[in-house]
């Protein structure tokens, strides 16, 4: 394992060292590149004046709020479509007509309807998160062991209890996989909206650093955004393994 991780680290370390040496040797003057040591210093500076932490809070707040709303809507429709084949078939054309709209195309609509700020970003993130949750939870509900549904019928559970006691627990491992996918999408969409137009959060921070011709700070933001994306992914994979173990793997496309 240690040999494996040493090999995994060899390439990035070599690239960073070469970059550092090259930048020092040529006395690099650039609007787009900075030696790694300067990037680390800029990152420390941004932590010291709390600016990057405030930006992180704004981005994560928008991303998670959108994710929560998108998950609830997607799950409600996904479970309804999974239970009722009639409903699913009737809604098919409507769903297939709205789903391919790229989330970012809604940006101008959200902009004139809601203005700049958290709300428009949350709406766009929620729209992007609805679809993977809807599609995957629909598939998860459909693949529930039919005998479980027979039990629910035999016990004459009312519909609400049938969903709560049978369907959600049975489909939960695969729903969590969908949630993990959507969490990644939520972060991507939040940062994209901020970079494109919304003046808050990490995306606005990195754009500002670029416009201020601070390549060290810009790349520090890039590294930090990458670290958050990676940490979020690791966290959710660990949670998935802890909570569901092998049960989730069968529903995982990877």
């Amino acid at each position, binding site marked *: 394992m240690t040999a*494996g*991780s040493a*090999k*995994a*680290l*060899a*390439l*990035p370390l070599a690239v960073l060292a070469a970059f550092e040496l090259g930048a020092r040797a040529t006395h690099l003057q650039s*609007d*787009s590149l900075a030696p790694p040591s300067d990037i680390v210093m800029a990152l420390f500076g941004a932590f010291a004046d709390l600016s990057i932490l405030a930006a992180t809070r704004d981005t994560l707040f928008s991303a998670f709020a959108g994710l929560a709303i998108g998950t609830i809507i997607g799950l409600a429709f996904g479970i309804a479509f999974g239970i009722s084949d009639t409903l699913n*078939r*009737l*809604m*098919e*054309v*409507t769903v*297939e*007509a*709205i789903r*391919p*709209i*790229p*989330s*970012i*195309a*809604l*940006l*101008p*609509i959200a*902009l*004139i*309807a809601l203005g700049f700020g958290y709300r428009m970003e949350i709406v766009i993130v929620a729209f992007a998160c609805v679809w993977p949750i809807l599609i995957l939870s629909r598939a998860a509900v459909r693949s529930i062991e039919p005998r479980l549904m027979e039990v629910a019928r035999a016990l004459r559970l009312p519909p609400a209890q049938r969903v709560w006691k049978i369907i959600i627990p049975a489909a939960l491992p695969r729903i969590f996989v969908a949630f993990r996918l959507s969490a*990644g999408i939520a*972060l*991507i969409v939040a*940062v*994209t909206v901020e*970079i*494109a*137009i919304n003046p808050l959060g*990490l*995306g606005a921070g*990195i*754009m500002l*650093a*670029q416009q201020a*011709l601070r*390549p060290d700070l*810009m*790349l520090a*933001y*890039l590294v930090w*955004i*990458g670290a958050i*994306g*990676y940490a*979020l*992914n690791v966290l959710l994979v660990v949670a998935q393994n802890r909570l569901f173990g092998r049960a989730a793997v069968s529903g995982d496309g990877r």
Partner: protein
Amino acid sequence: MNRGAILWRVASFAVAAGFIGLWQLIANLKLVSPVFLPGPDRAWASLVRGFSSGDLWSKLAGTLEHMAYGWLLASIAGIAIGAIIGSSRTMRTYVAPSLEFLRPLPVSAIIPVAIAMLGLTQAMALFVISFGAIWPIMLATIHGFAAVEPRLYEVARSLQMSRLAVILKIALPSASPDILAGMRLSLTVALILSVVCEILAGLDGLGHWVLLSARAFRSADLFAGVILLGVTGYVTSVAMSLAEHKLLAWQAAQH
């Protein structure tokens, strides 16, 4: 399709038409201000006007062009780099972990860096779109190469095939379902990044068009643009599915 399926389709279209009717009703009753929500009639009229004056054609062509160039470049580079990494065990152990580390990075975060290097230009858009679209293709290629049936490699060794021949004759065909799936994912990424680049850099395309319409509060034009972007997403993904089906027909026939 049998008759039942056709009937369901018709019913499903009727439901969608019902929603459009509801949208019209909401717009007519002005439940939502017409500044934000034009009726489907006004959005449709704007689509017709835009296409007959040729305005929307050129915007659509601009977006498709950005998307296609970026995606094609990403496909060629992604398959080539993926093949080089995937066909060598040494490369896989040294390079693949770094790629896995970079994968969850929100690719749009590369946009400011690209702007700093290349300015607000077409080259910037091409770089950003292909950088974003390359990941699914490259990772799918590496994965597909790693999953090739080992006995096929043994056959190649006993036939003393060169590495290039192994890649072209054994690994690529065997990995093609993975690669095509990656290319389909990338198509969506390419469309989204095209729109973002057009918004940021003011490049000719639908992204720029919807932003300008929003700024001028021309909501009918805005909705026309968004509908057209949805159609673009739908048509490209259907076309990709058809191509996938055609290209993989030989594989289905084998089983």
